[in-house]
């Protein structure tokens, strides 16, 4: 009996070394983690770093982060927390009712818990109007897109603990009050999405994604094209939906929060539809130069080919910080070239998701306003 116990003990001891062995000979394939996180490099040993006590904690952190088996441990921990306690181990992720996933910021924006400032919004609208007028004098257009946040679309799934304070005036409420009649060009995609909810064959927002679904993005894209065509009177190429794929698995960004939770098992999701889009290839159509300034919701539209097929120059300033110009090379947005950039555009689109309604244009309106005010 002792012999069996001895073998067992030896086995347990060797078991403790599995992660270290994996680091040496990589005998298992471990699915990498999804999302953004830092991995510290192993620190270099020196006597001074040892005696200063900086080497030891740095090595502990780096060993942990560089363990090749770490993704498996993290996924196991996250799965247990999710399955047993309905807990998400991902930054600002909130698990709503019936497993709908949210980012906390979107819930706060929907509920007006993000400290709305009506005076600032009125000033922003006044400046935007001024910029729009100046652009129009130069034959250019400004278009603001109010993209809904997921929490607005699925407000019924927001956990009760967020509702105890009640819904307050949100930025959207302020825009709904001040934008109509302001003369500004805008598309209220939030209002449109809410109107279309339960009327579309597929959800406009996915259960486990933070961005609009492919089907939702298609509706948004159609609205943008129609606005440019009918309100700006530019005969841009139009789009048609050829067919809609209905795969078992989600695609694109429809599971992005789910992926960020780094679980072992995939959560059950809604049936999603993936339209196959065909753009008008008539060469007589006009493809304007368009600069879009906005957040990550625009990536879905780029994925569908909006920039490539409807617009001419493919410019996207991500958060007004990083410029992506075809073929999407990254460069920092340079405010000193703003005049040149605006001069080369026909339309400037400011695309903003609900969580960023407090900062429409992400600084563009203010920069352009200053330029025009300074007798550009």
């Amino acid at each position, binding site marked *: 009996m002792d012999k069996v116990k001895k073998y067992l003990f030896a086995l347990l001891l060797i078991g403790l070394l599995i992660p*270290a062995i994996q680091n040496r000979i990589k005998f298992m394939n471990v699915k990498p983690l999804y999302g953004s996180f830092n991995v510290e490099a192993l620190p270099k040993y020196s006597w001074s770093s040892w005696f200063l006590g900086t080497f*030891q904690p740095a090595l502990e952190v780096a060993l942990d982060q560089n363990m090749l088996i770490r993704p498996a441990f993290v996924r196991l921990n996250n799965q247990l927390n999710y399955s047993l306690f309905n807990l998400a181990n991902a930054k600002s992720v909130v698990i709503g009712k019936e497993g709908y996933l949210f980012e906390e910021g979107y819930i706060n924006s929907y509920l007006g818990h993000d400290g709305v400032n009506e005076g600032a919004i009125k000033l922003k609208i006044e400046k935007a109007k001024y910029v729009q007028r100046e652009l129009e004098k130069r034959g250019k257009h400004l278009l603001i897109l109010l993209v809904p946040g997921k929490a607005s679309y699925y407000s019924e799934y927001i956990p009760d603990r967020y509702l105890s304070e009640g819904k307050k005036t949100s930025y959207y409420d302020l825009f709904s009050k001040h934008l109509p009649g302001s003369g500004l060009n805008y598309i209220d995609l939030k209002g449109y999405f809410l109107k279309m909810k339960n009327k579309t064959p597929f959800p406009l927002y996915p259960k486990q994604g933070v961005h609009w679904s492919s089907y939702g993005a298609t509706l948004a894209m159609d609205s943008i094209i129609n606005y440019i065509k009918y309100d700006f009177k530019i005969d841009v190429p139009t789009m048609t939906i050829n067919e809609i794929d209905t795969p078992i698995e989600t695609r694109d960004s429809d599971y992005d929060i789910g992926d960020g939770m780094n679980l072992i098992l995939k959560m059950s999701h809604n049936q999603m539809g993936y339209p196959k889009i065909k753009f008008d290839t008539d060469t007589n159509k006009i493809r304007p130069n368009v600069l879009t300034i906005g957040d990550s919701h625009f990536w879905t539209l780029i994925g569908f080919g909006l920039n490539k097929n409807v617009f001419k120059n493919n410019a996207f300033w991500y958060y007004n910080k990083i410029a992506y110009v075809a073929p999407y090379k990254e460069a920092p947005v340079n405010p000193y070239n703003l005049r040149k950039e605006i001069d080369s555009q026909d339309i400037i689109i400011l695309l903003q998701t609900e969580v960023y309604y407090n900062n429409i244009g992400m600084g563009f309106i203010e920069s352009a306003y200053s330029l025009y005010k300074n007798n550009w």
Partner: protein
Amino acid sequence: MVFSSSLFLLYFFPLFLIIYYLADVKYKNNIALFASILFFSWGAPLFIFVVLGSILIDFFLVQKIYSSEGKMRKQLLFLSVLLNLGLLAYFKYSNFFVENINALVANWCAHGIAWTSIALPIGISFFTFKKLSYCIDVYRNTHKPFTKITDYGLFILLFPELIAGPIVRFNEIADQIVDRKNQETIDNKLLGLFRFVIGLSKKVLIANVLGAEADKIFALDANTLNTPVAWIGILAYTFQIYFDFSGYSDMAIGIARMIGFKFPENFDNPYISQSITEFWRRWHITLGRWMRDYLYIPLGGNKVKSKARLYFNLGLVFLLSGLWHGASWNFIVWGCFHGLFLIADRVFLLSFYEKIGRIPSTIITFIVVMIGWVFFKTETLTQATAFIKKMFSFDFSSYNIYFEMNFWTMLFLAILFSFTGGFARVVRMQENVLFLEYSLRRVLITSVICVMLFIICEAAITSSGFNPFIYYRF
């Protein structure tokens, strides 16, 4: 290096054990000593030289005590005690002393003492008590001193209990340091490993979860809390500190058992105590015994002439016990608070508890302990009093705070594990799990459970940055 870190669990621990087991018996102590020095210097790379120097001086000083007689023997003992208490006073209490002196003289608009704060070396309170037990036990002829300095070094620095106890006294472990061949059985190795995993699970799966919420609540302004939130906060901390500290003790006892040592138990279901007197027989048992044998009894113990002197002795022991935990007024008040209840036990409380019965006295004692923990947890007396005030303000206004399901689950488990120790059947079960030999079938089943628990713990450790050990402060 903490036990609940990937570095320890996946590198240091298995590598040490493999080298230790493969080594010839005559090298085992040296391997354990080398590992202990590495373990200690990992967190205190400069202070290790002070410790090694003091070990060297102590070793020869105590040998001299052993060979001396009469007044000389007493003087050498005094020197040894002074040396060790001096180190403790300098490294642990000088900042506190200077801060208070400066605060006092500031009232008279005088210049304070210019002082550069000293970093607190890890485990100093624990190994100082071990060193004191060595010189006092030898002085009392309880046991002969070590003949090899490496054996003495190992006794002081033995890494499982180096930084958070249990406080193993010299006479308890002296023979095991020299020879423990008979203790290195496969049953001890397996049961030690199981005990280690149990401790790790207590720390990682229960204490850390409760601690995160306790920290969140105690970080808030106590005046803004409502009464239920204040109670949830202190309840979370009450169980955090127990599962954290007893988990650490389990891990220490487990590792020690794996390498042939038998450490004394440090906890015995403390929250089922029916008085503070009983609480101190169940909580941090090795500290209580140390205080009793090396301080309380030398002061006269229970055999003093007057009750006033008895109460004075009790009060002094607990004041010093509070101060041992940390150099701040909060720890002193915490010690005095417990001392006060110990005196009250002797005056009237024990007979009162007897009248009201087991369950009410357990509840009252538990509440008293919880109130004490407020002083332990908070940084200042102002914070502590504000928090206690809130606990008893009956303020049930709404407060927007949310606790995840894992918190409630772990709190429930903590309560369950803590209070079911009051039932004889559960106590038998605990003894069965911790102390009795296992059949092969039971070994196999426990191994599977422990492997699963270990993987879950390591998964939690590597996934989370939150992993503090409370008792490292002392």
